[in-house]
């Protein structure tokens, strides 16, 4: 009913890392064209939306039409522990047997190792993605974003992202001091490739979420989109054709 092969253990590690930052169960929806996941964390502050089209995999077969996917629900702790057994030389195969009760991860290298994970009962409903409009869109070098997040995190628990047409600023403050990271648009040297702002916009986000998710970003480029006091959408690619979207609710200043 489902079978896929993946040569790159790096890609799989990246996916599992992203899931592990905020979920306790991974709920994949598997169809003939893709493997997808869309879930909020338990506090409903962040959402992870992952799409892995069949092209991400070297082999891919699934009998479920796109309209009625198979629910594949796995405990994250087990998934992380099993995935740690991978070596970089391994070639991976995933499958669900006819009975549909286990998810098998097969690591083929020096040995042929099979791990069968018990499937969990899927949640009664699938999460919808919020309809968001963005005033700011930034494409930037992923490492620069990760660095900015870490810089602000030295002194603060949250980051304020401010953007106008020319500059993008990450800032944070606490009783101990403050940090500011300013990036300018354009020029061959600039790590900010695209910076579009309909209006000057500013919003604050919890850093712990951003620090965790940025560890799971493996692509060179990230796309940031946000509006004042609205959620942030962070997007990066997984193995060229797959997509990782991360949506984070803002911290809103009280009146």
């Amino acid at each position, binding site marked *: 009913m489902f079978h896929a092969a993946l040569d790159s253990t790096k890609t799989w590690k990246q996916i599992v890392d992203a899931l592990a930052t905020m979920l306790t169960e991974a709920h994949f929806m598997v169809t003939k064209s893709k493997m997808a996941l869309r879930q*909020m964390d338990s*506090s*409903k*502050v*962040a*959402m992870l939306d992952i799409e892995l089209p069949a092209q991400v995999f070297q082999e891919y077969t699934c009998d479920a039409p796109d309209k009625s996917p198979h629910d594949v629900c796995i405990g994250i702790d087990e998934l992380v522990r099993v995935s740690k057994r991978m070596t970089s030389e391994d070639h991976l195969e995933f499958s669900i047997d006819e009975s549909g009760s286990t998810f098998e991860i097969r690591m083929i290298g020096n040995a042929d190792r099979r791990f069968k994970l018990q499937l969990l009962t899927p949640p009664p409903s699938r999460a*919808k993605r*919020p*309809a*968001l409009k963005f005033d700011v869109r930034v494409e930037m070098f992923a490492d620069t974003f990760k660095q900015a997040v870490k810089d602000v995190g030295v002194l603060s628990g*949250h980051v304020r992202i401010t953007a106008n047409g020319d500059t993008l600023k990450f800032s944070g403050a*606490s*009783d101990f001091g403050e940090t500011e990271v300013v990036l300018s648009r354009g020029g061959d040297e600039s790590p900010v490739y695209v910076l579009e702002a309909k209006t000057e916009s500013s919003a*604050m986000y*919890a850093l712990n979420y951003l620090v965790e998710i940025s560890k799971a970003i493996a692509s060179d480029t990230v796309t940031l989109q946000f509006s004042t006091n*609205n*959620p942030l959408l962070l997007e990066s690619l997984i193995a060229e054709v797959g997509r990782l979207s991360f*949506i984070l*609710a*803002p*911290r*809103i*200043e*009280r*009146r």
Partner: protein
Amino acid sequence: MGTRLGDIMVATTVTLKDLAGKTIAVDAFNTLYQFLSTIRQPDGTPLMDREGRVTSHLSGLFYRNVNLIEHDLRLVYVFDGEAPVLKAEEVEKRRERREAARLEWERAKEEGRIEDAFKAARASSRLTAEMIEESKALLQALGIPVVQAPSEGEALAAQMAREGIVWASASQDNDALLYNCPRMVRNLSISGRRRGRGAKQKTVQPEIIDLDNNLRTLGITREQLVDIAILVGTDYNPGVKGVGPKTALKLVTKYGCLERIEEEKGLRLDIPYQKIRDIFLKPLETELEPIEWKRPDPERVMEILCDRHDFNMDRVERALERLTARARETDGRQSSLTEFF
């Protein structure tokens, strides 16, 4: 003080947790009087500093607000300005009552009647101009905004709630409702306190009174509620003898308004009721500056409480630590994604 409408109004009991994140305009005088009357020793002696100055109100303001801030409530204190002319008589009466109570307190203390002494002492509570200024200074040091009303504080608190600047107004008396306050909170300054003895002992919880719900349930308009209040007695007039809230409700429901009660029932109302109606129905509207909550200033608080009024430094410091820890967390509220669907 205020109008006794409790018997006919329905309140919902909540917990402090339910009020987390809410902004509330507090009737400052009402709250200060509560602290002055309740924070006393068994024989009625209030808290005092080395020089004999009363500090019950400061103690109440400090510890109570720390507690409420910890529960994530956002308060604004609204202070009374000049009392309406019509209130002069009531103000004078209160002054006399306080003076009489003070004499009774002295007597009861001398004669060893402790319970009587406590009761009399409570009734003798006085709020001086100095106390008001110090209370404002302490609130500002705590980062809590203070607003000065041109006249009655409750009228301004009601306006703020109506305009959505605050979620509700807080007071122990019901006058806020007469001033068209959509929602009021009672017991905020005494919640958690125990009332009664033995098996009857109960912990006081905050209560919310929703104006529209109550008017709908009673089947009256706000104008009619004001007429009921006038019959029962307000700060501006003594009530009609023998008429409590329930009787007043019956009268107003039956006849519609005070004019018709006079005409048709032949009840002579020797009350300038049109003027009193105007106080409640047409209060002065005030232009309001935006309200800003600031970080507490621990040094200033220590100065007011410990240096000037001999509060225990350790206790004040411990409470302040709780407060600054809280202030760090509240640099913005974490919203939920569900708010953006």
